[in-house]
């Protein structure tokens, strides 16, 4: 426990606790939500648009469903969307960047041009276009965002590789006859992956925000699945009189994104500090 606090600081540990809580909420939603069936979408029209009360801690939405349960179930969608987007982007971007940076030459040039094109789009737009083309659904929107994000990781990986490639121990390994593949995996990959993983942790927050923006627009999960972005959109008509319908999911997005952001910062400060000391 104290090792954790040393690693992340008090703020960072708090954020980790918040994130873990949300993860648990997401995992055990059916058991933790007060009205699981409403959380999953069953309407309850008699209790339409009721303010927060003892029965419904966060009030009910326009179909009478318990907002708290919907928020808890929404955690499943948002957490998985944020994590998957980052994971996919990393899975695509890291190898491409590694190969381009290590082997250089025309492959590298080609990669740079391709990433230039992808990065020329203001982020959300390409994702919107792609999600619209792929059709509705959570996986489609996750893929759409991942396709717009991988170039960042590819570029980062490439930059790291370029630095590591010139390190004496890499040169030494290749002089000793170690195969290219082995050098890449055993010597370069660990060094390159590390800052990328830190960046990935920092990125889960923005990924989450992007995914919820997409579902706010109508691209993303299909109704009646609970999703925070979609819930904010649904509640817009009743804002600000029945503020809880939009406010609850909105604030939740904000809190979780904040937690990831501060955690990522804490990780990066420690990481940056360590690297500086080692240099």
């Amino acid at each position, binding site marked *: 426990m104290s090792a954790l606090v040393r690693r992340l600081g008090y703020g960072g540990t708090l954020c980790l606790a918040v994130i873990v809580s949300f993860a648990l909420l997401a995992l055990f939603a059916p058991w933790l939500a007060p009205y699981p069936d409403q959380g999953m979408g069953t309407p309850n029209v008699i209790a339409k648009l009721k303010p927060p009360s003892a029965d419904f801690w966060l009030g009910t939405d326009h179909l009478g469903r318990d907002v708290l349960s919907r928020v808890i179930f929404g955690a499943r969608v948002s957490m998985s969307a944020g994590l998957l987007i980052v994971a996919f982007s990393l899975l695509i971007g890291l190898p491409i960047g590694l190969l381009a940076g290590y082997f250089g030459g025309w492959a590298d040039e080609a990669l740079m041009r*391709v990433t230039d094109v992808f990065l020329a789009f*203001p982020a959300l737009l*390409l994702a919107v276009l792609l999600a619209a*083309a792929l059709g509705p659904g959570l996986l489609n929107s996750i893929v759409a965002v991942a396709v717009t994000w991988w170039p960042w990781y590819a570029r980062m990986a490439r930059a790291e590789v370029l630095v590591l490639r010139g390190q004496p121990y890499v040169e030494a390994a290749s002089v000793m006859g170690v195969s290219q593949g082995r050098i890449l995996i055993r010597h370069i990959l660990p060094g390159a992956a590390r800052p990328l993983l830190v960046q990935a942790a920092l990125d889960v927050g923005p990924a989450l*925000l992007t995914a919820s923006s997409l579902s706010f627009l109508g691209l993303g999960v299909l109704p009646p699945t609970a999703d925070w972005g979609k819930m904010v959109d649904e509640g817009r008509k009743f804002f600000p009189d029945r503020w809880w319908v939009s406010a609850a999911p909105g604030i939740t997005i904000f809190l979780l994104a904040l937690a990831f952001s501060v955690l990522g910062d804490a990780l990066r400060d420690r990481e940056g500090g360590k690297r500086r000391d080692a240099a």
Partner: protein
Amino acid sequence: MELVRYTLRRVLLSAFVVVGVTFLVFVVAQVVPSDPAALYAGPRPTAEQIAKARVTLDLDAPLPQRFVRFATAMGTGDFGVSYKSRRLISQDLAVYLPATLELAIFSTLLALLLGIPTGVIAAARRGSWLDRMGSLGSVLSVAMPTFFFAMLLQLVFSQWLGILPLSGRLSQQISISDPLPFVTGFNLIDAVIAGRPAVVLDALAHLILPALTLAAYPAGIAMRLTRAAMIEILARRHIIAARALGLSAPRILFGHALPNAVGPALTVIGLSFAYALTGAVLVEIIFAWPGLGRYVSEAILSKDFPVIAAATLVVTLCYVLMNLVIDLTQIIVDPRVALT
């Protein structure tokens, strides 16, 4: 000479990117979907409409040919027809693009005005209360979802305080009873041209909330970047030398240190503009701002795919152009950039 070469290379790169962007949009629009014709035919298309779309898209022709058709159409401004408005998309774009650009430019200016001085002061008064508040604000602005922030601003300034209008670009009275003649599409400029100061104020009042929403995140980044850059610069030898020469503190801070930080500031402009262009999609819905963003979001709902494709392409090209301008400006400000 170096500068000329760098400029040339940069322009060529932009040209290449333009082609690449067009190609990517083409791929997403016509190659990715399982049935592009159905997408283009509009919501709930009839078989006849789909067949017509197939012809328009020339789906049986080889890929390169289709791309050339696509590119030339876009190049000549023929973006097709919107299924919702039944109008030429290019006509809609001509009206909506300036509205969004006005928002983007204004929010970028706000972001710089808020972020840069805050960053300078935070660096000069490092560790102080002011610095900590600034950092906190920056962290919060990064995590706040744009659409939610917009709603909050509406709540506070329109509903509770009642000092700023809720939505739209101009008050109802003006747009209905005495409409502003359309010259550039930028209300602020048009109002000045028409010599109507009351309208200028009205347009400004309507601009503030949406621009502020879009400026929050970039301002946070601007503050962070400026602060970090200034901290590094203030430790440099030439600043110590300047202090040793007896120059006054404000002169050193703003005359010697800040000019070195212009690079990061320009980066922020690029970032801010991009963020505004994409964020506009969300913000325009909430503020009922008749711009490209709202155009696109409605197209999403009505599955008006040609609109989405056209808007994406146009906005992206604007963005590429703007980045080129920023990069070339960087050379003027810091000549060393071109030499690396």
